[in-house]
């Protein structure tokens, strides 16, 4: 069966963006929960949450690379 490039691109970005989106939501939920428990540590928690978000965002980028390099 011959897949068209647009179909491949669409499927890749559609299925591949589920993982990082769920991951970022989990990071956000954990960050907000821990600020709720301990409001004084807000800046430290915010910094660590941003670092984790940067790490998980990179997975999204790997998916995006496939989308941009498929002809």
């Amino acid at each position, binding site marked *: 069966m011959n897949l068209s490039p647009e179909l491949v691109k669409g499927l890749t970005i559609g299925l591949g963006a589920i993982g990082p989106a769920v*991951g970022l939501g989990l*990071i956000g939920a954990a960050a907000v929960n821990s600020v709720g428990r301990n409001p004084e540590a807000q800046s430290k928690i915010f910094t660590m949450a*941003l*670092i*984790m*978000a*940067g*790490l*998980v*965002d*990179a997975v999204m*980028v*790997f998916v*995006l*690379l496939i989308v*941009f*390099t498929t002809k």
Partner: protein
Amino acid sequence: MNYLTHFAADSSVPLASENVFSVFGFSVTNSMLLGVIIGLIITGVFVVSARRLKIRPGSRFIYFIEITTVFILDTIKTNFDGDEKKARKFLPLFLAFFLSILFNNLFGLLPGMGGTIFLHSGTDQIPLLRPFTTDLNGTLALALIAMSTVWFFAVKERGAIPHIKHYFSILKPWWNPMNFFLGPLELLTELIRLTTLALRLFGVIYAGEVLLRVITILSGNFAWAGTVPIIFMEIFFSAIQAYLFLMLSSVYLAMATTPIHDDSPDSSHSPSDQKMTQVEAVN
């Protein structure tokens, strides 16, 4: 015949950067050109401000440079568990990483980069300048410098053979085949760190460039209003990725230069190891 023309094109951002001119058979690409220019600017600024060093900073510009340096020193110090001498030893390298990545990313958002100033050579037109971090060669070079510093200082601190044995003896009896299998896995982890350092930075900044181009084409006549939120998002992501590169490389370096304690049974987790398992669990 090469000549400069100014108009906006509607071709997409190419994945590989194109050659601008060649010097003795070694071709120079447009991303290398911008990387060298920004490197010279940063070096010049720091050399000039180091010459005018006084106890109280003379002008507000030098004060600003001092604030940046102290900020990075504090960031590195929390990764080295408060060891100031070691943090100062590695400060120039991390300062160079952070400022080079940040300014290369931010200069890609200025007018004229990668889209409007062209060089005509023959029949096709190639952009004259392009951010250094949108080229996979550039980020691979940065990641190689970071990881080879980590490996060099790990070998220098512990010696070559104990360093390799350290990978095989994460869990205590190293002749146990289940624990022995962790050895090649840990070595693979080092290579994966190098790859993800390079690919993460390249992917985020390159995807930002393509997104900017797509939004410009889609907006048509209203591109001046449609790209403003995208540019804000790009500024935010540039700063985040520069900070992330700095944190990750300093955590790897701190982990590699702690001396191994392997005499008592409950000392196999140093504080930086705990921090590392937290970071690696998400990666």
